[in-house]
């Protein structure tokens, strides 16, 4: 008997077919059990999150008719209308400002405070103070700052006191000040979280390389640039992405604080989308704006995945 035939006979005696059949049945059984356990989660996520996203994409290619609903396929016409809409282009510019600002200010402030407070005695109190705004609801924060920025509010009265002459700036009423003012509120609310996350990241950095560098006579600045910062990079990247996504999709603050601003819909893409759909009933057009927002968010997440792998490789 040759080798192959011998093996064949041996396998037949063990009953390999029987085993693999049983194995398959077992796996099927486990899948059945697993599906039973996953069923509520799957049904909810598919039915109320993923299906709406798919429906939204489809709606963006239709035309809305008052009584028939969304029954007419319209190709890209909803998207083609976007660039010629002055509110859309303005919202796009403002959203770009938000993205830039949320990438710079919360990160710079949060990183600065994390490094500053890290080894400080009694820093717990200060850290808590900076973190508390994050615990308040965004709507409450918006209401609070709405009155701080009001014409006769805290900021104007404070400025009047400092400058000695009456300051009467309509912070939330003028196009030049409304976005910076709300961004300042956003920074006030989110810098504390950035700080806490970076402190967690800093705490996870091993002491050994820092000790070694200290013994070799490295200066604190050098240690930060060449050791701490590269090791903090993964956390920093994660925090930056979180911040950009938060700034890109900010809605509550703009909705509350921009309530009296005449061009409220152009404050950001998210507000423009809400306005077109739920106030002007331009449903198909609104869903096209939502798709644009979704595409940007997906590309940011995609860039994050790429950068994350790169940074991980660098650190290793």
């Amino acid at each position: 008997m040759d080798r192959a035939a011998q093996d064949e006979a041996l396998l037949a005696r063990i009953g390999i077919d029987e085993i693999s059949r049983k194995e398959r049945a077992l796996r099927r059984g486990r899948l059945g059990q697993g599906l039973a356990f996953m069923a509520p989660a799957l049904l909810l996520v598919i039915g109320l999150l993923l299906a709406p996203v798919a429906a939204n994409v489809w709606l963006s290619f239709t035309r809305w008719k008052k009584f028939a609903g969304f029954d007419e396929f319209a190709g890209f016409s909803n998207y083609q209308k976007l660039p010629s809409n002055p509110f859309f282009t303005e919202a796009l510019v403002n959203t770009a400002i938000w993205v830039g600002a949320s990438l710079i200010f919360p990160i710079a402030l949060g990183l600065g405070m994390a490094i500053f407070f890290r080894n400080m005695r009694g820093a717990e109190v200060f850290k808590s103070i900076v973190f508390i705004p994050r615990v308040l609801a965004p709507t409450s924060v918006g209401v609070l700052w709405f009155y701080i920025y009001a014409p006769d509010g805290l900021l104007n009265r404070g400025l009047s006191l400092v400058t000695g002459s009456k300051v009467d700036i309509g912070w939330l009423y003028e196009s030049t000040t409304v976005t910076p003012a709300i961004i300042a509120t956003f920074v006030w609310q989110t810098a504390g979280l950035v700080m806490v996350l970076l402190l967690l990241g800093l705490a996870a950095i091993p002491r050994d390389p820092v000790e070694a560098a200290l013994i070799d006579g490295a200066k604190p600045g050098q240690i930060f640039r060449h050791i701490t910062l590269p090791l903090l990079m993964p956390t920093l990247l994660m925090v930056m992405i979180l911040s950009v996504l938060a700034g890109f999709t900010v809605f509550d603050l703009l909705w509350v604080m921009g309530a009296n601003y005449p061009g409220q819909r152009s404050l950001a893409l998210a507000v423009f989308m809400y306005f077109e759909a739920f106030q002007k009933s331009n449903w198909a057009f609104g869903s096209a704006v939502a798709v644009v927002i979704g595409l940007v968010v997906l590309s940011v997440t995609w860039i994050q995945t790429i950068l994350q792998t790169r940074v991980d490789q660098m650190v290793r």
Partner: protein
Amino acid sequence: MALDLATLDLDAIARKEAGRRRQPGWKLAVAVTVSLLWVVPFYYLAISIFKSDQEYALKPPLSLPKGVAPVLDNVARAWALGDMGHAMLNSALYGIVGAGLAVLFAAMAAYAIARLDIPGRGGWFMLIFAGTVFPFQMYLIPLFFGFQRLGILNSHFGMLLFYTAICVPFPTLVLRNFMSGLGREMDEAARMDGAGELTIFARIVLPNTLGPMTAVFLLQFTWIWNDMLFSTVLGNRPETRSIMNALLIFQGSYSSTGPNVILTAALVASIPSVALFFLLRRHFMEGLKVQQA
């Protein structure tokens, strides 16, 4: 308890001692200045709720209130005019039931993915986790029309359904990671003794997962409590309105009530999430850590 070697690191102790002695005064000055910038809005909020309409309008905004009595009137007016009691009950219902069910369903899914060796578990996980990828704007219009067609727009059931769904994906991630780290000896032993998967899940895995489940429950509860967008779109009726939506509407009627009353409403609306945070800070910090992982 195991001996923690880090606490015996004498060098570190010496270094800390040295650091303590060297702390310069300018550091404290900077810290105080920065904190002041953060504190002033809070201070303004804290004193405004103690002012009557007249006092708020006439006195400088940062002056101390004359007394604490007006706060009762402010709360009473905010409570009545903003219909806050009703809205708070709604939000409590959405937060407790929605986040509770979501965490339970997430734990079940995580059990299947992390401990049942089902085929294609990476794919099943990605399917559930995909619910965190898209911006909220992509859900709004289809949900609005879908709920309208099903007759559950502006109903407690519809709100609960949505809040439960949106709170499932993130806890699934956290609990899956946690459950894959748990040892399997107990499961195997129970399985040998003929226990079903439901028994193993409920009697062995769940009790060991209560810590992370509490952490994600708190995060999700706070998210639901603070949500204004979905409550405005899916439940904008007095009977189903959430607290943040009620606050928004109350503020919109600004002309009839003074800022002191509306600021009081804003503070009262945030009390539950702030109180929860301070009571259960450890769990929140745990939640932040898992959010980062």
